């Protein structure tokens, strides 16, 4: 995607970095870059790359990006606790885990993301958010926006329009935040509601908030306008050119090693496997023929895999050997509906061929899968 604005040029990042004096009028060079991709994993990988590879001693970077529909959870969060994974799969919405802390957010093209890169010494979130507020007010003076002490930006004193998170490394740090311009609030609220019951964990919980789009306050606002206004304010603050460099997060020549970072962010082991240890303790009803039975399930999940599992069924509803076979196979398996489905159906092949038995088995397994 190439943006039409005349202020943007598609210079290679390498040019800017090799000739630092070229773009900057002072030694505290501010560099503004914008991603041409809407893929959440690629964009998160760019953050990783800059964090790991760029020397920010005399330079600060502002990274502008937008994603096609995705839910992004914080580093230490539990996706089962935070969102409706079933709905995400149905709607083909991606799930990503970022490396910074904080809570869960929903991204779509009506939301903009800003990342402020500095050295650890110059890490200052309040200043960054004040910069954003200043830019918003310059664009739209009547907006009632302010920064809270929880690093949120509120509209009209009650609606959250921006959430913040940060990552600090040994020498560099970044602070990123979202900004709701024209996102789909309906999808947002439905995907960020978890249907999973009985979860107990020490993962960082999200704090739900009422949200509003800036577009609702001023229908003339677009994401492009917001990005430009913020870039302009940043350029002024850092006495640098208001020139936005476009970068392609798939380009290995500009960002060597980036594709590996992108891949890592997409692995199951990162997205799900990094979930802090948690337990599931719940029960469900199975209606079969003329009776309804209660089933109690307890599971411990570590690194996204089932460490221990216990299924409490009424006696003899299923042959105990079969039940223990299921439990045995679930242990060590991923806490994942697809994995459990294939596991359960494969096990069925070596069961006695009895329709009644098969129906009961399928009912039990389907309910187990619903927990994931």
């Amino acid at each position, binding site marked *: 995607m190439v943006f039409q604005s005349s202020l943007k040029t598609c210079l*290679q*990042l*390498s040019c800017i*970095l090799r000739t630092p004096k070229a773009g900057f009028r002072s030694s505290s060079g501010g560099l503004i870059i914008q991603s041409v991709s809407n893929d959440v994993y690629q964009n998160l990988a760019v953050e990783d790359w800059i964090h790991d*590879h760029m*020397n920010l*001693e005399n330079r600060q970077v502002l990274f502008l990006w937008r994603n096609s529909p995705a839910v992004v959870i*914080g*580093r*230490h969060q539990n996706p089962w606790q935070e969102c409706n994974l079933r709905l995400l*799969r149905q709607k083909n919405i991606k799930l990503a885990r970022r*490396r910074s*802390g*904080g*809570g869960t957010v929903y991204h779509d093209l009506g939301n903009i993301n800003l990342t402020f890169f500095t050295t*650890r*010494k110059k*890490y*200052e*979130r309040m200043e960054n958010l004040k910069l954003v507020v200043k830019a918003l007010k310059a664009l739209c003076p009547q907006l009632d926006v302010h920064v809270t002490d929880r*690093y949120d930006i509120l509209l009209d004193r009650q609606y959250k329009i921006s959430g*913040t*998170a*940060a*990552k*600090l*490394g*040994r*020498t560099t740090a970044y602070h990123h935040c979202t900004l709701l311009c024209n996102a789909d609030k309906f999808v947002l609220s439905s995907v960020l509601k978890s249907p999973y019951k009985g979860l107990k964990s020490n993962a*960082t919980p999200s704090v739900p908030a009422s949200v509003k789009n800036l577009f609702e306050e001023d229908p003339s606002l677009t994401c492009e306008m917001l990005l430009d206004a913020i870039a302009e304010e940043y350029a002024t603050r850092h006495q640098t050119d208001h020139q936005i460099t476009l970068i392609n997060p798939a380009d*290995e*020549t*500009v960002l*060597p*090693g980036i*594709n*590996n970072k992108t891949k890592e962010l997409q692995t199951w082991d990162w997205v799900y496997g990094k979930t*802090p240890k948690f337990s599931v303790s719940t029960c469900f009803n199975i209606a079969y023929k003329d009776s309804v039975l209660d089933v109690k399930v307890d599971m411990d999940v570590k690194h996204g895999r089932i460490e221990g599992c216990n299924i409490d069924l009424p006696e003899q509803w299923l042959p105990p050997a079969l039940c223990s076979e299921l439990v045995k*196979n*679930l*242990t*060590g*398996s991923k806490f994942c509906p*697809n*994995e*459990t*489905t*294939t*596991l*359960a*159906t*494969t*096990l069925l*092949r*070596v069961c006695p*061929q009895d329709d009644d038995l*098969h129906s009961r088995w*399928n009912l039990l397994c*389907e309910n187990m*899968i619903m927990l994931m």
Partner: protein
Amino acid sequence: KYVCVFDKSAFKFSHQQRLFRTSAVSCGQIVQFKLSDIGEGITEVTVKEWYIKEGDSVSQFDSICEVQSDKASVTITSRYDGIIRKLHYNLDEIAYVGKPLVDIEIDASKGIAPEEDVVETPPMSHEEHTHQEIKGHKTLATPAVRRLAMENNIKLSEVVGTGKDNRILKEDILNYLAKQTGAILPPSPKGEIIPPLPKSETVPAAPKDKARKIPLPVSRPLVFSGKDKTEPITGFHKAMVKTMSAALKIPHFGYCDEIDLTQLVQLREELKPLAQIRGVKLSFMPFFIKVRCAAEHCMEYLCRICQNLASHNIGVAMDTEQGLIVPNVKNVQVCSVFEIASELNRLQALGSAGQLGTNDLTGGTFTLSNIGTIGGTYTKPVILPPEVAIGALGKIQVLPRFNGKGEVFKAQIMNVSWSADHRIIDGATMARFSNLWKSYLENPASMLLDLK
């Protein structure tokens, strides 16, 4: 103890002289590594993940743990080389800035670093941390990198480090190896590429023998670890082991044949666009499936022994990331070829998305495996219990064959390999079934007579 105060002017050098000598430190001194300032006036954090455990050896800059405070996730890295002797906090406990985080036992031959606030330290002062000196050339590398070098018989002193302070990274070892083995690296016109910028950009500390440019890290990893890895079989794979073991108990007998699909290929070419208009991708499988059913019907005996199944649910083997899964098309006996094709499309889409349901994966009565899409001609397929037979289809090849007039023509040949449970199906039955199946496919027009 020996404490030094540094100022930046001391660091305009390009040689390796150390500014203070190794100290009078006793063997294995335990140093308490304190949690450094996080910034923004934060005094406490929660420990969220440990990257090391007691007894692990660490190098300077290795990640020790991840802590979180107020929406910020912080990676704490080690200031020293040594062995972790004590973790002061458990997971989810609150850790305090300025208080000990871990105890590290520092190697006897190394000096102790001066007390300093990590946040304020400019990169250069890390020069003072002691590292192995090999013939006056410092080699900074983590234990993992050293191990990789050792496994591949590489001298660290011969490798150019591209990390901070010329620290040798894993990529540097891989680069070095690539040069040794003559592997082809992606082209890297030096003018246009930024290597990961070494943090000591402002201090060009170049070792004496480093005349070359900083090489590019290889993005395609060449793995030379040479170590066997044991991984436990879990979940789905465990279940497959059970299934295959049960399958092995079935006495298999195989029957193979060659089918001339020339006419079918032509027919499919004609029908493909019609199916396309109706939104369905038409492969050969729907024909194979439907014909299998028809053949079975015509063969009463086979029908009877397949337990008088009212529903013929033909499973189609699918290769996914997880491995082999077999969703099935239900009630093939009442479906048209188009309906079967449509259902296959649906199952394939769900299969790739990892969203097949239990209903799709159970109840199969017979399986067809189109292994030919990957390759191969004849195979020896294994029956999937509780079924009694399985068919594997090889790839379609263009081969010369003789026609009725004794002329050579281009034929589209596909090989089929059947396996059947010999306790239930005998050779003659299998042969007759296969011939019937073959004749339908070789003369598609004849399908019109018998396909229901």
